């Protein structure tokens, strides 16, 4: 009797241990990073000192903005992420809708397979030739090039996502609209789209985050006027080994990720539904 409850208690303790351990593993780096950003790292950098709340300062943030050119990079990041988001949604949503409405399962299967298989393409084979192509064509570093690459990167996943959402729209509702006299375009815009709106939100959120965080295409294809935060922080922190700079790097980095993390925590419901959609068929 006693052994049973002890075993149960140990099992439960083990479960809590796993969850707590994983939780700490996930967020401890971010917390350390943030604590360093508000500390004067020219005085100290060890972990216990970072948490001792001595030498709290906002200087690191001030330096990031003034000398690190943070706001310039932020503007570019928002432009790239926003444009990519809009482009991807406009291109992918009708395409996904059309695929779900195909009558032949064979054609449908081929297209779905095609969409799926393009998810594995290495980004360097998009970035490198485009980089050379734009040099030869004479317009390097344009926003157009970056967005084109982001479109290539995002389309497979977002189309796949939206197919899953459109497949969940009840046929009866659409057929009722047809009977009421709607054209196929009207069925799409007035019936199907509103129903998949949560899915659209999920796709939009994920597409924005992915484009905001993107680095490789920005590195190859963004010119001096278009560089986003990801390139900005690498230029700033690239090979820095100097101790005093660590706090500034932490501030720069924190300003990049903390807003996104807070945003993700608020909309986590959409992110979860987006990432599990299509993978879980219920």
């Amino acid at each position, binding site marked *: 009797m006693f052994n049973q409850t002890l075993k149960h208690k140990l099992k439960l303790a083990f479960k809590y241990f796993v969850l707590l351990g994983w939780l700490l593993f996930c967020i401890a780096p971010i917390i350390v990073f943030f604590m360093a950003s508000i500390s004067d790292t020219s005085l100290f950098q060890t972990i216990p000192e970072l948490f001792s709340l001595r030498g709290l300062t906002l200087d690191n943030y001030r330096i990031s903005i003034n000398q690190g050119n943070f706001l310039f990079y932020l503007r570019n990041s928002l432009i790239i992420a926003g444009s990519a988001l809009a482009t991807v949604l406009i291109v992918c949503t009708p395409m996904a809708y059309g695929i779900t409405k195909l*009558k032949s399962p064979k054609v449908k299967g081929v297209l779905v397979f095609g969409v799926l298989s393009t998810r594995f393409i290495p980004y360097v084979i998009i970035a490198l030739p485009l980089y050379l192509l734009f040099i030869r064509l004479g317009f390097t570093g344009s926003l157009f090039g970056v967005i084109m690459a982001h479109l290539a990167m995002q389309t497979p996943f977002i189309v796949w996502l939206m197919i899953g959402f459109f497949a969940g729209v009840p046929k009866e509702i659409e057929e009722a609209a047809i009977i009421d006299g709607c054209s196929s375009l009207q069925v799409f815009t007035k019936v199907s789209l509103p129903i998949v709106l949560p899915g659209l939100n999920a796709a939009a959120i994920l597409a924005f985050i992915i484009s*905001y965080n993107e680095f490789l295409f920005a590195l190859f294809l963004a010119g001096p006027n278009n560089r986003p935060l990801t390139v900005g922080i690498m230029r700033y922190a690239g090979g820095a080994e100097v101790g005093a700079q660590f706090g500034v790097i932490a501030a720069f980095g924190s300003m990049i990720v903390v807003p996104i993390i807070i945003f993700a925590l608020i909309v986590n419901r959409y992110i*979860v539904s987006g990432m599990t959609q299509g993978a879980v068929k219920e």
Partner: protein
Amino acid sequence: MRKFYRPWVFIIPGLILGLLTLGIPIYEAIKNSFYNIRLYRLGSEFFIGLENYIRLLNDPIFLIALRVSLIFAIGCTVLVLLFSILVSSVLTSDKIEDSKLTRPLMALFIVPFVTTQVVTGIMGRTFIWQTEFGLVNYLLNLIGIEGQAWLTTPYLALPTAIITNTWRLTPLALLVFYAALTTIPKTLIESAKLDGANEFKILTKIKLPIIRYHVIFISLIIFTSAFREFDVIFSLTGRGPARATNVLSIMVYEQGVNVGNMGYANAIAFTMFLIVTVLTIIYMLIFKIGNIGDQ
């Protein structure tokens, strides 16, 4: 009624754009790989046929890059699966599943996935794996283990990169497995319990087999994602001490942009593309993933 929807009207624009944005670069890459192209002497390209590919097969750096990429991808896949199955199993286990903890926990578990990749690498380089002041060495010292030079020791750099990338990728697998596990009918679990199965047996003999297609699918996603990884490695260790983390994508960057040998870099990129395609096809054939797409 079917003809009414005119699906191809909706599909064609997106399909054309998709094919262009993917097709043009790949076509250019193949074309470029047959030439000797110098980035800093553009205009003097000349055709050299398969020479880039022959050179690549004999290039020791390419072989290193290939090996590192494979080890990195396999390492990440194994670790991600390990952690994600463990954590998702616990999250859906008896006392935990219905508690109020799961929603907030899941929300926090997403954090590594939305953290900007280059910031992850910089964070790792400056505060986590750093030899003197890093978090890892601090924790190790607390329990009496000597701290290591994680990023500058050749045989430690790659495992460090693998762990860092695992940190970033696990949430994706975790979410999918968690969602899949929660859709298992409770009646199935109940009847197994009535038959006397304990929790662990239920997990290994019932739950995990049910989600095995999800595991297979996700492991392919993780593998291909890790194989082509650039951002995290570039910002964490670059090509690493003694090229310990010199993955293929970094070699492409180095050869194309730093050295300026564009034709060769394109050949490497296309070879990378071929390798991933072949591996994916083999993987799909082994696990018959083609059938899943029909569902």
